[in-house]
């Protein structure tokens, strides 16, 4: 299961700055279990956004947001509501956000941070990857994850090495992630997002929590020192 936690509301509102009309996408997969993107959380978000003066043009809770084909069919009936929105708020893990971005021509904002993709990886059938960085930046990259799409997991833009849109490290098999990000943001008219990246990435949340890092022996020793 993919573990996600909701981002603080001010951060989400920061992403939505300038956007008045929002369409919300939720997920009945792992996000339901984590209570980040099931219907109750989506409705709560809808209400909060309303209080902040935003119009929610509609919402949709997809069974598994990591399955692109499914996302496409489930969002189809909401086409008009999505068209009417300035952008989409996606309440689920990084993979779900990327999958949504891959099927809509609008900016998508992540509402959650992915902290762990351990165990079963959902219905994940796409090429999307998440490094469970715990501090999702998909808002700034048009829904393409720079940590996994760029070989050097650069967060400040491309190195000078891409050629014909391919990565210098593996030109035969790999697109340049930053080329994809640039092309997408350009298409959405939001290249300004590239300028607003946080310059230094916080990797602290990528470390497994203490409990998971420990072995039984280690845990026992810890207990003993406490006694």
């Amino acid at each position, binding site marked *: 299961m993919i573990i996600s936690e909701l981002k603080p509301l001010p951060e989400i509102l920061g992403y939505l700055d300038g956007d008045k009309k929002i369409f919300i996408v939720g997920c009945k997969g792992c996000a339901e279990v984590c209570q980040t993107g099931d219907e109750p959380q989506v409705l709560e978000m809808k209400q909060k956004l309303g209080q902040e003066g935003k119009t929610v043009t509609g919402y949709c809770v997809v069974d598994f947001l990591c399955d692109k084909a499914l996302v496409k069919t489930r969002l189809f009936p909401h086409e008009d509501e999505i068209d009417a929105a300035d952008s989409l708020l996606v309440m689920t893990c990084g993979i779900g956000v990327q999958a949504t971005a891959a099927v809509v021509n609008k900016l998508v904002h992540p509402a959650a941070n992915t902290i762990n993709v351990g165990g079963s990886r959902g219905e994940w059938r796409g090429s999307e990857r998440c490094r469970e960085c715990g501090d999702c930046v998909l808002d700034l990259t048009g829904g393409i994850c720079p940590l996994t799409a760029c*070989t*050097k*997991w*650069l*967060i*400040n*833009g*491309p*190195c*000078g*090495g*891409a*050629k*014909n849109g391919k990565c*210098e*490290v593996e030109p035969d098999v790999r697109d340049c992630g*930053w*080329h994809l990000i*640039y092309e997408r943001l*350009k298409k959405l008219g939001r*290249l300004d997002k*590239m*300028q607003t*990246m946080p*310059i*230094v*990435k916080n*990797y602290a949340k990528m470390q497994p929590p203490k409990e998971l890092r420990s072995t039984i022996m280690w845990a026992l020793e810890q207990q003993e020192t406490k006694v």
Partner: protein
Amino acid sequence: MSLREKLQNGKFVVTAEIGPAKGVDIHEFNENAELLKGRVDAVNCTDQQSAVMRLGSLVACHLLNQKGVEPVFQMTCRDRNRIALQSDLLSAYVMGVENVLCLTGDYVTLGDHPDAKPVFDLDSVSLLHAAQQLEQGKDLAGKELKGTPKFFLGACVTPGADPVEPQLIKMERKVKAGAQFFQTQAIYEPKTFEAFMKEAKKFGVPVLVGIVVLRSAAMAKFMNKNVAGIHVPDELIDEMDKAENKLQKGVEIAARLINEMKGMCQGTHIMAIGLESKVPAILDAAKL
């Protein structure tokens, strides 16, 4: 006058680079340094160039300082995390190394230790930012420093990248993060460079045009095929092909390129890659 002062005074500057030895025999390094002394304004020491393990760049900079040659300390983010990078920045300052070129670095699989674990905790932009923080008396964690360093921070840009717009966006981020000068990837087409400089001028930072000395037509073709952002036009490949003395031709072309682009920028950075001994000849031919 230091590199910083020369650029501030509007002098057209020349830098060249030397790769530290793979091993501890520093004869050739010293010879190259002697050759360049007095002819160039500063010398870059590459940092495990192409991800190939060698003698360290900081030590090489120290050797240059001892010889009275002003060094440019190249730093990549491939091999060190933010703790080691900041520590090396402090060490550089203490050893009298002021110029630092902040780079992301080539990926490990391109070098001679493909099994290594790459780091990339920071990248070129965040390394500049870290250095700038240190100059303001704080480290990246916000902790106070005892004594503050002062650097002349540089960065790299690829004017021949296609598309070039993301490069310009990143260049702006580098300027904001503290870059005070740029050395470019090699350029063989003055028109491409002119178009790039038209855009880059607005950042108001000096740009040193990058020159890689051609050795043969085969080398040019190899770069066209394998090195992104470098394009050697067919006429130049032809010229190299027909030349009897290839080395002399390479020198002549390098000098010609410098002369054609001199008026568009604030200096030139010559990457001789093994032909360091030819740099004085290039400068003679370019009348620099």
